[in-house]
């Protein structure tokens, strides 16, 4: 089909720009035959899901003969689905963006990755020490701002308290993963952190009258019709907004860009666990990760991935990202949400 041709051409051009031929045969020799088999994975929905389908699953299908389908659901809903189907999963493979893999592992809902040959190439911290999950991409968070309203790019999370932005600030609710990270980074900016969230709540209370939204789908309206100038979010959405023509810039705060792992796991008892393992291995390939970086500005998790110079300038390297203690955050999340609902959203 035409679409396949486009993605293949993009692959070839990506490789040409890369100019490093030795990467070509990576895993190609080990291509398995999954003709007639199918793979069902959760997906993030919308254009993100389409891009991942074309950049990863379609070429994987072509190479192995499998048929991969993504079912759109947000990470939290995906975890709920995995839990409700525990023991008899209808979906073989899950993709998470909010640290849900930790909970899934703890509750025994997923199985270790047994046939992902590149797993050891991925740095510790981007993969589970026991091999239960692996991050196949990383998203850099930071500050999105209207370039025409804010001349000097924001430098710190403390800038959200600047009086000149009053009435033009928006931030995500804490049920959104980026909302939790914003709270933690505010705490860090004012002397706290994951283990001392108090300064975060103190700072957020000062801007509780500002606009609070729940989903990334509100971003274009907020910047477009909401008269909003500054929002804590991620580089991927900044790129989407820029592509749609909004004058939005992305700034890396001095406290560091919190990193969001995009992880892949295999459901315990999955009927197509072998296909899922091979697909995850495919996701870790440099050529797939370059394509994802090109189309979404997501950071590659495999250090062997060498981005072409033009891309490298726009996508932060994985070593530049601040790591948050997700386990510690997940432990306190329910408690923070209760408190947030009472002190901030009211």
């Amino acid at each position, binding site marked *: 089909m035409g679409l396949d041709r486009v993605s293949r051409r993009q692959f070839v051009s990506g490789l040409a720009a890369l100019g490093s031929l030795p990467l070509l045969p990576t895993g190609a020799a080990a291509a398995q035959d999954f003709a007639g088999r199918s793979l069902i994975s959760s997906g993030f929905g919308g254009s993100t899901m389409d891009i991942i389908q074309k950049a990863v699953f379609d070429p994987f299908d072509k190479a192995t003969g499998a048929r991969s389908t993504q079912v759109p659901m947000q990470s939290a809903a995906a975890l*709920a689905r995995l839990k409700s189907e525990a023991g008899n999963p209808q979906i073989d493979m899950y993709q998470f963006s909010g640290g849900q893999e930790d909970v899934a592992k703890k509750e025994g809902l997923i199985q270790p990755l047994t046939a992902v040959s590149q797993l050891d190439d991925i740095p510790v911290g981007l993969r589970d020490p026991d091999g239960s999950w692996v991050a196949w991409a990383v998203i850099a968070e930071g500050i999105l701002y209207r370039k025409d309203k804010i001349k000097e790019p924001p430098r710190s999370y403390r800038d959200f308290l600047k009086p000149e932005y009053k009435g033009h600030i928006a931030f995500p609710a804490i049920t959104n993963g980026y909302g939790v990270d914003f709270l933690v980074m505010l705490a860090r900016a004012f002397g706290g952190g994951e283990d001392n969230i108090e300064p975060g709540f103190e700072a957020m209370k000062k801007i509780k009258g500002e606009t609070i939204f729940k989903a990334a789908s*509100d971003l274009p309206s907020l910047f477009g019709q909401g008269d909003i100038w500054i929002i804590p979010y991620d580089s991927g959405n900044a790129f989407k907004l820029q592509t749609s023509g909004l004058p939005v810039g992305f700034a890396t705060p001095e406290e560091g860009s919190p990193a969001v792992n995009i992880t892949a796991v295999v459901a315990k008892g999955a009927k197509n666990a072998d296909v899922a393992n091979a697909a995850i291995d495919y996701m870790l390939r440099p050529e797939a990760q370059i394509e994802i970086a090109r189309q979404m500005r997501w950071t590659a998790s495999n250090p062997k991935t060498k981005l072409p110079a033009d891309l490298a300038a726009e996508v932060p390297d994985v070593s530049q990202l601040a790591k948050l203690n997700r386990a510690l955050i997940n432990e306190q999340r329910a408690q923070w949400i209760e408190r947030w609902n009472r002190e901030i959203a009211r």
Partner: protein
Amino acid sequence: MTAAGVMTAGKGAAPSRIFVPVLIFAPCLLVYLVFFVWPQLSLLAVSAFDRGQVSAAHYIRFFSDEYYWELLGRTLFLGVSVTLITLILGVPVAYVIARMRSRYAALLLVLTTFPLLVSAVVRSFGWMVLFFRDGVVSNLLLALGLIDQPMQLMYTLTGVIIALAQVLLPLMVLTLHGVFKSIDPDLEHAAMSLGAPPWLALWLVTLRLAPGGIIAGSLLVFSLAISAFATPALVGGARANVMATTIYEQTIELLDWPFASALSAILLVFVLLISLLYAKALDRRSAGEAAS
């Protein structure tokens, strides 16, 4: 399959007087039991357990916390406001269409119900465009000089009420239309021939004859309004939390299923209670008037 089985069974046995209605109801009853009663009961059962033991902990948590009382109050307030608005806006529309002699009456009725063909999600997105600070509503009010600063209805309870009223208005109009249509216009004419001005005839005759339609329409709108999820989630955002969005949050974000099911049970009980009281009050009033 079930229906076919029931029919052959009915043919074989000599159909007794009591047996036939039972057989006719059996397929519906079976479907109802399997797909509604049983899931409903097992949902309620989840809320009565805490770490494997029977406990009222989740209900105590709800009723001992003023935050949840406020949540319940906000949800009921949303339901009542939306019902009142749709009633006030719906009665004239339904009445005019029902009394219309033009051949366009049917077309108008279809036009009224037209919004129902568009999903509530899409309609709520439409309101989002209008409600933002730089949106149409704010700019229009500014231009008219009604407000002197841009205002934002987005992420407020007022915004949710306006959007939900629009989403649910067609249901109210449809219900009332059927009732007005069945009231003989000659009754109004009789009232007017006895000297009542048209508005008094409308009040004394038509509306007094329509409590059934008003009850049905209000109950429909009220129950849909307080259980609505899409519009409060999209337009209300984080600040205008209602029961439905909180149930979603507890189920999907926090995976606290027992508490979520306790919330659903509480919502269900309050809806039933209010519906019964409302229906009873309207019924008694119209019965009292008929007697006097």
